[in-house]
Each structure stands twice: as structure tokens, then as C-alpha cells.
């Protein structure tokens, strides 16, 4: 009987082991990055345009930073160090944005009219580690918001706590933004994102992410 009593003490002591612990998540260091977010393709001679870009630090976080702009031919398009470009004469130039070791560039045509690129990007999902995630998605500008739409052919393996992220890494959410809880495992669905949080070109990947366990189920890269 005495042994039985001690056994209860033993089992109860085991229960207390079951406390919620703490995991220290080590930061992943990545290269700093500059991403030009303006989607202009052509600028009319005589007109000006303010370029925009985002800077991502070594933790992948989008932070403010001094970005220096330049043109490879100031006789065609001149640009201030703050990014205000003016078309001088017809021709093609490369516009560069630099912050420290990070840089990005786009081609700009100076011509008769100002032309912006399409305000839409799209891509296709693929599963990771044999999780099934399929279908296509589009990201469009709509006033002050972006709209991320999964098409009717979207489907994903089920799992606890699945969320949608925009990120610049194919499988990690560091530095990305949480768009919202996955609305359903299949079919068309739309998520609204304030343009205060991201621009059309800020992020390059959409991730389906099991947030509680920190595992990516699927990913898709914008193809344009």
C-alpha cells in the first residue's frame, strides 16, 4: 500500500514536467537587399517621376534606410540622389538604387509617353516536403490596398494554424508579413493587404505556413 502511495506521488510529479517551455529562435542572417517597387516602364521626355524602393536589413526585415539613386546616362534620364527622375531625351537607361552593399536596378525608356507596368503579379504554388499545395495566385493593386487572390484551382494539405505570408524567402517568413489565416483549404479566396504594409513589388513569394509549428507547407514565386 505504501508503494502504491509513492507511485501516485511519482506520477503526479511527472505531470508537473509538462510546463510550457520557451524556444529561442536564432535569427537567420541574410544579405541586405534593396527592391525597387516602382513599376514604371517608360517616362515621357520632359516629365518627372519619383522612384520608390524598399530596404531589407540582415534579418530580412523591411526597415527605412538611405537609398541613393543613379542613372547610367544622365543625358537621357537624370535622377536625383533621392530618386526623382526626369526624362531629358529619348533612349534607354538603367536606374540603380543602392544602400550599402545592397542594390537593385530597372530599365527605363525615355520616350513619347509615360507607361506603367501592369498592376498585377501572379505565380503558382508548389508543395514543400510532400505537403500538397497547388494552384495559382495573383496580387493586384486596388486603390490603397493590395488584393491577393487564390484561384479556384487552389488546394492545400490541411494542418493546424495555417497562415498566408508574403516574404522574400521561398520557405521562411522572416522579414515577411502575415497576410492572414488561410481561409479554407481549397478554392478561390481573397486577402486584402494595406499598401502601408507592402507594395506590389515588395515581396517575391507567397507562403502557406503552419504558424504554431513553424513549418512551411507550400510556396509560390511571383513570375513577373
Amino acid at each position: 500500500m505504501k508503494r502504491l502511495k509513492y507511485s501516485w506521488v511519482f506520477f503526479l510529479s511527472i505531470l508537473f514536467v509538462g510546463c510550457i517551455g520557451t524556444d529561442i529562435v536564432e535569427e537567420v542572417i541574410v544579405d541586405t537587399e534593396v527592391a525597387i517597387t516602382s513599376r514604371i516602364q517608360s517616362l515621357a521626355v520632359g516629365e518627372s517621376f519619383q522612384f520608390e524602393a524598399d530596404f531589407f536589413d540582415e534579418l530580412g526585415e523591411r526597415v527605412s534606410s538611405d537609398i541613393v539613386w543613379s542613372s547610367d546616362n544622365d543625358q537621357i534620364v537624370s535622377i536625383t540622389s533621392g530618386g526623382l527622375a526626369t526624362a531629358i531625351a529619348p533612349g534607354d537607361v538603367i536606374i540603380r538604387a543602392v544602400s550599402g552593399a545592397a542594390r537593385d536596378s530597372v530599365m527605363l525608356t525615355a520616350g513619347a509617353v509615360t507607361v506603367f507596368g501592369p498592376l498585377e503579379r501572379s505565380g503558382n504554388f508548389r508543395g514543400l516536403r510532400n505537403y500538397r499545395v497547388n494552384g495559382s495566385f495573383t496580387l493586384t493593386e486596388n486603390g490603397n490596398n493590395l488584393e491577393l487572390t487564390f484561384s479556384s484551382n487552389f488546394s492545400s494539405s490541411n494542418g493546424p494554424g495555417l497562415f498566408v505570408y508574403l516574404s522574400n524567402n521561398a520557405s521562411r517568413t522572416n522579414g515577411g508579413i502575415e497576410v492572414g489565416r488561410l481561409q479554407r483549404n481549397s478554392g478561390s479566396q481573397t486577402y486584402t493587404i494595406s499598401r502601408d504594409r507592402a507594395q506590389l513589388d515588395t515581396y517575391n513569394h507567397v507562403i502557406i505556413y503552419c504558424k504554431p509549428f513553424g513549418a512551411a507547407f507550400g510556396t509560390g514565386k511571383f513570375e513577373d
Partner: protein
Amino acid sequence: MKLIKGLILTVLLLSGTTSLQAGGGWPIPKGKGYFKLGEYFIRSNSYYSPSGEIIDIATASIYITSAYLEYGLTHRLGVTAYVPFFSRATLNEQVSSNGTVLAAGDAVNSLGDFDLSLKYGLIVNKPIVVSASLTFGLPLGNDSGGDTQVLQTGDGEFNVMLGLEASRSFNKGKGYVSTLVAFNNRSNNFSDEFRIGIEVGHKIGSKVNGALKVLSVNSLNNGNDLETPSNGIFSNNIEYLAITPELSYNLKKNLGISGAIGFAASGKRVLASPSYSLGIYMNF
């Protein structure tokens, strides 16, 4: 995320019966019984993904306090009950190295999924004995618990498992070997399972018994992955090859304690760390 270091093995204890029944192919003698109070726990920060690859995850834990009972109704027919009367699942909080809380921890306490079984001796009093078992898995656990609603102490599905066990003793009754084949029919879009297992045991001295259990669980992949969980120890389409050494020590003629560590050579959709089981048992 933490790096995976060293040998990482897996484990499991699922809602369905996971190891060979105590007694193997031998039916429970009429009027006799076996009772065990057990504690099972696993704590893991790694996980076998559906491809079988080990990946890092937030540390998840399961603690199950259970009672297990066998009783012989006749010389051929017996009943068994696995009653996890207290199950606790936890998820660690996630804190970045600079102290920022990335995700709060979570926990849920509830009953677990019960198993009730009937076991019938098909071939008795022969060198090789065979029995059949019918197990009902009752989904009394919580399949969506905690603040995050992602913690589970059960799979939320009712299952029926038909098993066949064969056993024989050797070395003048000091040792035994048992084999198992079973088909687990699961509901709620979960895939059915085919299980095979073998258990070898032997006396070690006068008071100690040792056993080695090997169990292979294979999904038939005939469920619907879109409708069932696929990232937890109660997931759909779980597969594993578990190897569980166990030692028991007889304190008295009818009273003893046992301990086991569960490993696995491979797995899919299961936590990838050793599990531990402790128990105190009595025969009556």
C-alpha cells in the same frame, strides 16, 4: 531554429492501439485480469515531414496518464480497455534571440482517445496460439484545443481495428515471441492503416523481464488530406517503424513496475524524438 544534432529517433502513441496487446496470442484466463497505470510522454522540436525528412518545429509535447485493464470473461474471450484519463498537449512559446516574443506558448488538458477491445482465442492450448481482437477507438480527446485551437489530445475520428496475433513460448516458458497483423478502419476522411508487429520477451533473472517490440504502421492513403490534419502526432496518413525496448520489474508476485523508450527507424507526419513510458502494474 535549433539544429538537429545527433541521432534523432521517433515515436508515437496514437489513438489506436499501437503495440502488441499484453498477452499476445494467449487469451486472458477466465476471471483473471491485468491492470496498469501508466505515464507516457514525448517532447520534440523535430518532426518527420510527409516526405520522411526531419525538420525543425516549435517544441511540442504530449503527456498522457492512462489506465489499462484486461479481464478474461471466458477461457477464450477477454476485454481490454485503454483509458487515457488525463492528456496534456503543450506548445512552447517562440522567443527570438533578442527577446522578442514571436509566438505565445499554448497548452490543452483533456481526456485522450479511449480504446475498447474484445479479444478471442482462436487457437488455444497449442504450441502456437492465435487470437483475434476487435478494437474500437473512441474519439474522446480534443482535436482542436488551446488558445491557438491547434493542439490535440485526440484525432477526432472513430476507428475500428481488426487484429490477429500469434504467439509461442520458448526456453521452457522463460521467453516468448508474438506477432501481429491488423487493419485499422478510420472514419472522418482519415486513411485506413495496415499494421504489422513483432514482440520478443524473456525473463532476465527472477524479477526482471525484458521485451523488444517492433511495430510498423502503414497508411493506405485512401483518406482525404484536404479535410484532415497533416501536421501533428494525430495526423492523417501517419507512418512509422517503431522500436520499443521495455523492462519490467516484479516488486511482488502480482505487482511490478515497467519502463520503455520508443524509437523509430523511420516515419512520416510524426514527431521525431524518443518517447518515454513508465507504469505500475498488477495481476489479479
